[in-house]
């Protein structure tokens, strides 16, 4: 289940992002929203991308597919199946999007066109990448897709509008659209955030199931560590536009090697907890325009030393982890975020 980290850092990965920078030019110079993002996803793998709102996790993924806002400045390298995407003509990117790389968005109601029937929308997704498809064949494929995402009575549903669907059903429709053209990579941007908890579980199981059935790679962008723990193979934690830690999911939760990751895991409320107050990382995420010098996390970090304030830490390799902390190797032993007295039980729940 745990995919090994490729030695050369994902040279043969399906998608490989290297030193991706996304900035917005403002009145006071460029605001760096993504700063040197390094990521890779391999076939058949689920990569969880975790971070707070505004950490640049969505923006980084969107920008690597050429979906950034018009005023964004993008640099770096994004290779999909060995081909560079940054700087590719829009037309070629368009042919790639929705065909080999698909996306699912957070809110399935606003992501569906309210004045088009669900059937027409899925048919459009097919038509966009295969103009020769006959209407009959397309309709047959739409029905198959709706069955694939377990929508009951697809024949009746095909002519309905998005508002006639429940939240979970809408997300299933979005997923059906996303996998319509047998993509190799599926980027799910907070796919369950707008859904209630029981539906969340169904959708996540379905995504995993589809991943296995269709053999696709899945990038799961989320701020929900529970979703990541349950469904990702590998996790990248993003802070202030940069990957601060990356490891296989079990190892990340068992022995986080970056203070930020530790803070995140410690913030998860636990049933066994007796304290009245929930833990939270002190301070707030930095403003883009006023990133602290050195390590971006140092003002909130309990382990911060002088070097953290002056030098931006390079990415260290600690065992199978990659961690952007000066003290990645020398952090004190991890106790599962339960306080000093608590037993060590590995927070892989």
């Amino acid at each position, binding site marked *: 289940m745990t995919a090994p980290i490729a030695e050369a850092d994902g040279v043969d990965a399906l998608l490989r992002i290297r030193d991706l920078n996304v900035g917005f030019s403002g009145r006071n110079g460029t605001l760096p929203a993504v700063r040197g993002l390094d990521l890779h996803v391999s076939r058949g793998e689920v990569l969880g991308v975790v971070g707070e709102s505004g950490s640049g996790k969505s923006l980084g993924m969107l920008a690597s597919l050429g*979906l950034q806002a018009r005023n964004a400045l993008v640099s770096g390298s994004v290779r999909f199946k060995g081909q560079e995407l940054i700087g590719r003509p829009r037309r070629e990117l368009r042919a790639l999007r929705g065909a080999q790389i698909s996306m699912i*968005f957070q*809110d399935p109601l606003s992501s*569906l*066109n309210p*004045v088009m029937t669900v059937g027409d929308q899925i048919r*459009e997704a097919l038509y*966009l990448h295969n103009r020769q498809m006959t209407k009959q064949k397309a309709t047959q494929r739409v029905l198959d897709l709706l069955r694939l995402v377990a929508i009951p009575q697809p024949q009746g549903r095909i002519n309905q509008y998005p508002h006639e669907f429940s939240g979970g059903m809408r997300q299933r429709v979005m997923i059906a659209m996303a996998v319509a053209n047998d993509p190799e990579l599926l980027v799910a941007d907070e796919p369950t955030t707008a859904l209630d908890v029981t539906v969340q579980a169904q959708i996540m199981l379905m995504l995993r199931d589809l991943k296995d059935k269709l053999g696709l790679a899945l990038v799961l962008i989320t701020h929900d560590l529970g979703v990541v723990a349950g469904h990702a193979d590998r996790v990248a934690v993003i802070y202030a536009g940069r990957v601060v830690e990356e490891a296989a999911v079990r190892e990340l939760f068992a022995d986080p090697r970056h203070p930020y990751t530790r803070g995140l895991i410690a913030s998860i409320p636990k049933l066994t907890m007796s304290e009245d107050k929930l833990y939270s990382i002190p301070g707030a995420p930095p403003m883009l325009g006023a990133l602290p010098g050195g390590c971006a996390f140092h003002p909130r970090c309990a382990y911060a030393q002088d070097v953290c304030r002056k030098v931006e830490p390079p990415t260290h390799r600690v065992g199978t982890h990659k961690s952007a902390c000066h003290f990645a190797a020398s952090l004190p032993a991890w106790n599962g975020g339960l306080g000093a007295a608590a037993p060590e039980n590995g927070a892989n729940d």
Partner: protein
Amino acid sequence: MALVQTTRTRFQLPDWATPTFIVGGLVVLAWLAATAFPYWLAPHDPLELAGRRLQGPSANYLLGTDALGRDVFSRMIHGARHSLPIALIVVTSAVVIGAGAGAIAGYRGGLIGAAIMRLVDITLSFPPMLLAMAVAASLGPGLGNAGIAMVVVWWPVYARLMRAQVLEVREREHVEAAVAAGAGHFRILTKHILPLCWTPILISATMDIGQVILLAASLSFIGLGATPPTPEWGAMISDGATYFYSWWIAFGPGMAILTVVLGFNFIGDGLRDYFDPRSSK
């Protein structure tokens, strides 16, 4: 079939059929009938000089006769044929041109968008009547030229409306999703943006039909629209203005304009109430 049939005791009108809408619709329908079948509805030929001059209303000449002895009532009915189609064509052309320009300006933005919107600003900075007069005068008299002049005056209104709509809809997530699905600009604009933009334009266009009829009549009144002996309402009022004591000459076409404009405004009001329930009451 275990469905329970809800009992409906009375015939119920559909939601959109508000009283204003129905009244407006009936009035407009009546005038459309006059447009379609004037020879059936009018008792006399509009150009026939048979009657005596400046006769008051009578059983034979319901609204009297004008200075040349033509039946005012018949001319009023025939006038619909010269006012309604022009108004519909003008509004349709203005919507097509304006909405098209507005959609491009809203979606593309940039230099082209700015150029379109400055042109809109410039056009709207003239008093509409004055601009229409200037254009019509330079093209020469005639209903067709008056129509062109009115399109020139009217398209910027729809361009502004459409641009505002597109700017708002463009940012919606389903548009982003369509981009992510690999859709091109044309498809995004025509399938994912424009279908959500039409409501305010439809409402405003309905109301504007009345305004355009008024403007066309005004242009004809000052001699820049229909040329004699065309029984156009504005021109007829202009004729009647010289014969102050024969009030019926201007009364007929005046009432025609009043009812048509009112009718279209009622329909527009009804549509707005239906599409945007917040604005009523």
